């Protein structure tokens, strides 16, 4: 009987052999044997640092409309208020990015590089929205397989190779899916229900991605719904801002990016009833 209480309930040395402390102290162990294990342990991004919140998007009869606010949060601090997260690629493609802002900038530069490379040869065949989506999916998926992800979720919108409105999601895992209405991040809980209700009212089955029943949505209606979503997001998402951008791409009118929009017709009446809201304790 081992009378040392420390050892009670632990694997017995006579059965399992002595515990190898170098495992627990692996950091020191590998420090000492740097020549052999210089690469260990290697750590890549474990969490996003400066972040952008939701991007939302919806298809309408001959195009798509997307929106994202201009905030870059540092934890719960509203650190930057002028981040543009809707990236124009060409007049048929836009990429809306949420998640880590430095990784957003990396994606921005990748797209810029792609743009320059595609102008090398006298090809005259432009990348369409679906090509850009596939490219970014490959980038994100290969980075995830390197265990060094770009910490973003993004929505690629525009006109696809089939000359139809295109809207598709992809995230840091390489997961991709399409729907007539999409959102990233917190918007999945706050905006999607509103967007889906809108689709339902229009008699649209959003589970059918290939159907073209987004066609009875007018651009104005879609825009109204998106504005409503942005308002709700600002009400309820603590990492959001009342300044945002909207981009519209339609077959008819091409691309239109509107910046510095403000959320309108808000009512914060209810706020006075919330305990702990605003300056000083009221109750």
């Amino acid at each position, binding site marked *: 009987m081992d009378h040392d209480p420390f050892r009670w309930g632990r694997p017995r040395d006579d059965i399992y052999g002595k515990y190898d402390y170098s495992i627990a102290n692996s950091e020191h162990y590998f420090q000492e044997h740097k020549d052999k294990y210089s690469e260990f342990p290697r750590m890549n991004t474990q969490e996003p640092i400066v972040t952008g919140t939701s991007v939302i998007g919806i298809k309408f009869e001959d195009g798509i409309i997307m929106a994202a606010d201009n905030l870059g949060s540092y934890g719960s601090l509203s650190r930057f208020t002028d981040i543009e997260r809707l990236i124009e690629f060409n007049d048929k493609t836009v990429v809306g990015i949420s998640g880590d802002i430095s990784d957003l900038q990396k994606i921005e530069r990748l797209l810029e590089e792609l743009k320059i490379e595609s102008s090398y*040869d*006298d*090809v*005259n*065949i432009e*990348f*369409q929205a*679906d*090509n850009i989506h*596939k*490219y970014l999916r*490959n980038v994100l998926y290969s980075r995830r397989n390197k265990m060094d992800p770009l910490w973003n979720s993004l929505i690629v919108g525009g006109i696809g*190779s089939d000359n139809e409105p295109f809207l598709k999601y992809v995230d840091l895992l390489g997961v991709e899916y399409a729907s007539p209405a999409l959102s990233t991040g917190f918007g999945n809980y706050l905006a999607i229900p509103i967007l889906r209700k809108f689709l339902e009212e229009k008699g649209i089955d959003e589970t059918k991605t290939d159907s073209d029943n987004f066609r009875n949505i007018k651009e104005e209606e879609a825009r109204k719904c998106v504005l409503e979503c942005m308002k709700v997001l600002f009400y309820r998402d603590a990492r959001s801002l009342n300044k945002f951008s909207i981009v519209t791409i339609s077959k008819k009118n091409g691309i239109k990016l509107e910046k510095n929009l403000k959320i309108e017709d808000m009512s914060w009446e209810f706020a006075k009833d919330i305990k702990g809201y605003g300056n000083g304790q009221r109750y």
Partner: protein
Amino acid sequence: MFRNNYDSDTVTFSPTGRLFQVEYALEAIKQGSASIGLRSDTHAVLVALKRNAEDLGSYHKKIIKIDNHIAIALSGLAPDARVLSNYLRNKAMEEKLVYNRPIPIQLAVNLLADKAQQNTQSYGSRPYGVGLLVVGYDGSGPHLFEFQPSGQVLEFYANAIGARSQGARTYLERNFSSFKSTTERELIAKGVEALRQTLKDTELTSSNTSIAIVGKSGLKIFENEDVEPFLKQETALDLAGIDENSNSTDIEERNPVEQTQVNDTNVETMDTD
């Protein structure tokens, strides 16, 4: 006897700035049997003459499929063409994998050109000894390119390479302006007619002629008995101007040999010239 000191490798310029090894490589194209390429506003066509080394031997492949929208015809060293087509196939797949789109033809031939150029500027490798006609259809319509071992790639309305191809070129130069709005069948017929101009003591038969056509609906390659109708049709065309029996463009009805994997493996195993 005069000896040319400047023609033994690709890294030596002659005193007049010529690269003889590269020029000799261009000669190798003329050793191969003829290939014809031509295009209309909607389609591009390859027609090629196959050779067999002996009566009991098989005919050597002249038209190679690269992707659903690109094919090449070769004149010259067939093994070199296989290396290049392999490279091109990989690049086409890469484009599909990364961007999910068929590789633009101009981009594809530029890749070939750059690959061939490398072999003309460094010691230890020879230039490719094969000329290619590349046809394809992409977002900007049908295309026909000629590739040369020098690394030169040019886009043509119509062209012919290989043995005795001058006759075909003359025919094409005379007629290419009328190709613009021809039907698929007529375009093939013109290609066959152009190929006839390269013949001497031989006839076009279903076993020595290969045909490929590419358009919006994709690539079709015709070999063996499937070539027969086009050879017959040509005589009809000659006599009656234009074939009036069928003005349909439904080449599918002819049950073409869509190149399948089986055929692709053939490409890999055949290296008879």
